[in-house]
């Protein structure tokens, strides 16, 4: 299986339209509890076309972090609730994948009621991201997010990225979904 190793801090400069420092820190909160840097994830891809060679249906992603981010993560551990951490950590990993594998994959956000909606304006795609620490929730969450991304207000096609930070299963499922009729 092909392996990539990238630094989580790369997302900060890769997405100038988003403030992502806190997402990077939250990702390190979860990853550092399970492994030293780098932390490994199996990434499963479905329908995502990357021009990068050797990206097949599955690859190994090793996410590294620096000492400064780790320090901030340790500070955050005592203050944050678990659910926002997993959600923001997933946004960080999604930002990393788009920055590294998809040209013009810059993300933007708008407010949609209580939650944030992510968009990839240059690709005219919507993006749904979610994170969980429980592998049993993984498949259900992916299904829910597919429905959600396809019901986006602009009726754009969409990507779904679900990240699982379970101690026994560190997995990312990244899929692309098209509207039935445009």
């Amino acid at each position, binding site marked *: 299986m092909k392996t990539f190793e990238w630094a989580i801090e790369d997302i900060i400069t890769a997405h100038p*339209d988003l403030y992502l420092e806190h997402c990077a820190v939250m990702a390190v909160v979860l990853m550092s509890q399970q492994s030293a840097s780098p932390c490994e994830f199996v990434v499963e891809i479905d329908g995502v076309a990357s021009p990068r060679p050797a990206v097949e249906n599955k690859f190994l992603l090793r996410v590294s972090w620096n000492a400064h981010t780790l320090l901030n993560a340790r500070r955050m551990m005592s203050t944050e609730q678990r659910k926002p951490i997993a959600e923001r950590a997933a946004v960080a990993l999604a930002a990393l994948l788009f920055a590294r594998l998809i040209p013009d994959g810059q993300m933007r956000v*708008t*407010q*949609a009621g209580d939650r944030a909606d992510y968009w990839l304006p240059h690709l005219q795609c919507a993006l749904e991201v979610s994170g969980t620490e429980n592998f049993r929730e993984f498949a259900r969450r992916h299904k829910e997010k597919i429905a959600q991304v396809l*019901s986006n207000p602009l009726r754009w096609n969409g990507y779904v990225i679900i990240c699982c930070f379970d101690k026994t299963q560190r997995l990312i499922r990244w899929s692309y979904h098209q509207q039935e009729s445009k």
Partner: protein
Amino acid sequence: MRRSKVKPAQSMLDKMLGEASWLMSHAEALADYGRNEEAVAELARAAACEEQVASWLDVAERDQEAVLHRVSAAACYEKLGQYARAVTLLRAALSTPVAAEYRRKIEEQLSRCLTRASREMRRAPLPKTRGPIAVAV
């Protein structure tokens, strides 16, 4: 020398869209850190920026995206407790045809803001419009 093919107005709009996105994500981060006063100030900036972006998208005839950003601005104003302003934006958003499911969500948001706005109006003291005229002696 190569010239950029991007029209100046288009690039300005793109810049504003980016700015609105950044403000929104920064407000979210500040709230995550529990820096609520700063988060509120940033959310107010994001709301104003989203509102402006929506107007520019109207000018660029990108109506559907304009609705999205108007609803986003309304969501910010709702969070800020500025319900009357949210109502105005949501009514404007509903004047553009959108998918039925999205329309239903906007209508729900509008109904919630209307309820809160009228509750707020009942509670608020009447603004003073007239007062004694100060005469300089």
